[in-house]
């Protein structure tokens, strides 16, 4: 049994990491809630953000956290044509066709990363990635604390965007009843395009933070997709506060799992939790999905 201090450090790290999970899950949650799109390429958009942050630092020297908005904006701009050409034309064809299309995008991106950047394991190399910071009785890597703070701020900003702005009003209207919103003059196509871009930006910014805290490879996306999904299912679709809480809970439980069973089991704990959540707590999602 590891000593108490190590356990405490690990659990606090898990909570902090959970904040970043909430950010990546938020991106998945809004595309699912507003567009009814199961974005199976979410993980690759996230890893795309990691690569953007990595090359931003290498070629321009811009610190990836300082350039986070830049990465988010770049990914949003890349995502827009993706939505126009691939998703929008399938709008009338149910949920399955767009989902499989995004699965195709996921396979394509993963292999493009492989061709362009090789299978090398990379990490965004910053001084605060490895530096430890002591908070009272616990010591954690500085990046965890930065990642948590930045993520919570972005999640709150997205919350304000959705709840307080005209765009947010159109987004909420399109989410609850797209046909009625269109009849009231909302340009649902435009809302969907911007929602997809916003989701991609959340994924990419999460990718920068995760790519700084951990190493990544072209195939890292799958695990992050599933973690994000677990958070969405636990927190409820479209529920921003729920997503934040669920992210933190998942981060904590993953760390707990890693402490008890060993580090290799970290992601497995999240997946088992996800399957349990599917089995035991499906009502929230079903009601919302059926509501549309």
């Amino acid at each position: 049994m590891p000593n108490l201090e190590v356990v405490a450090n690990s659990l606090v790290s898990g909570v902090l990491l959970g904040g970043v999970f909430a950010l990546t899950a938020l991106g998945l949650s809004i595309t699912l809630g507003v567009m009814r799109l199961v974005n199976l390429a979410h993980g690759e958009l996230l890893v795309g953000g990691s690569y953007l942050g990595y090359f931003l630092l290498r070629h321009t020297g811009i610190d990836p956290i300082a350039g986070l908005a830049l990465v988010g904006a770049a990914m949003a701009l890349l995502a827009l044509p993706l939505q126009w050409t691939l998703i929008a034309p399938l709008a009338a064809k149910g949920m399955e066709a767009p989902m499989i299309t995004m699965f195709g995008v996921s396979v394509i991106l993963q292999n493009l990363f492989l061709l362009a950047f090789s299978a090398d394991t990379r990490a965004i190399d910053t001084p605060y990635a490895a530096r430890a910071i002591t908070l009272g009785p616990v010591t954690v890597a500085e990046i965890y604390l930065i990642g948590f703070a930045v993520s919570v701020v972005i999640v709150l900003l997205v919350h304000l965007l959705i709840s307080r702005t005209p765009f947010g009003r159109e987004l909420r209207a399109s989410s609850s009843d797209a046909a009625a919103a269109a009849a009231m003059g909302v340009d649902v196509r435009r809302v969907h395009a911007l929602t997809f871009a916003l989701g991609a930006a959340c994924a990419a910014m999460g990718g920068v933070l995760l790519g700084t805290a951990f190493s990544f490879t072209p195939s890292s996306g799958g695990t992050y997709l599933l973690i994000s999904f677990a958070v969405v299912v636990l927190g409820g679709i479209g529920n921003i506060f729920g997503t934040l809480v669920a992210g933190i809970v998942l981060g904590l439980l993953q760390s707990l799992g890693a402490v008890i069973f060993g580090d290799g089991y970290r992601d497995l704990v999240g997946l088992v939790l996800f399957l349990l959540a599917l089995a035991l707590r499906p009502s929230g999602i079903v009601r919302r999905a059926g509501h549309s």
Partner: protein
Amino acid sequence: MSIAAKNHSGWLLLPLAFGLLAALSPALSHYALEIGFRILLLVTLAEAWNLLAGYGGLVSLGTASFFGVGAYALTGLLNLTAVPLALALPLAGACAALLALLVSGAVFRLRGLYFTVGTLALAEAVRLFMINSDSFGGAIGLFLAQDPPGLRGLYLIALALLAFTTVLMTLATRSRFSILLRAVRDDEDAAAQIGVRPFRIKLIVFIVASFLTGVAGALQGLKLGAVEPYGMFGIQWTVNVLSIVIIGGQGLRAGPLAGAIFVVVLGELLADYPAVHLALTGVILIIVIRFAPQGLAGLALRRRDARGERSA
């Protein structure tokens, strides 16, 4: 031509085709047997996936987990027990079916697309477990203690498996069960209203499809003579099977065969460039969904119907 006559000729043609493929095996070269085995195995997997997704509306991304469980179960059975191969293969399939039964509560609770995400999570969970757990050889895997049958023998077993699958698919798509299945796929609530039990119907196809996937996995494990988690539980099996059915034609009988030949030929052409192959498969997948939702088989059917109308 009437539907009855068409069915009649199909009933005669299929056993004939299987008989011919078996009779031809001594004349096939090593390369032809290798490709033949791969196509037979992939068609079997695609048939199982088509049953779930095309006929049952259950789009699974968990193929790799049932495939891998079948492969590991076969290796374990042959290494640890005196069970003959002829029995070990269906038992390995039964292990995969058991996994399906165990997780059915979780993946069926939520409808439609959550089944897809649930099965994806299952595949990743099983893969991570097999890599990390020491009880099944961990990341290194297990070796088969006995010599696998020769390539020709494997080809014939794969052919027999596909014949069995074809009979099963014919039963599932031509019987009363197929009507129940389509009713559940198209409107679960309406089906339940008129007395169909959706959970039971879905569970049956999930178990049958998982059994077939497991036996196919067992066969692949037997061919390699060793199993390891990265290959056996790898997402590439899922990608392959999904693309085969979508490219071939979802919910159509000819779909899996057409798709498997297409995917295997493409794979052979790009054998030296696996990443290009996969990326291109993704591109083709997207194009087919957009412009030919019924796949290659659907295109062929449409062309035949158009010709039929012109001549009529």
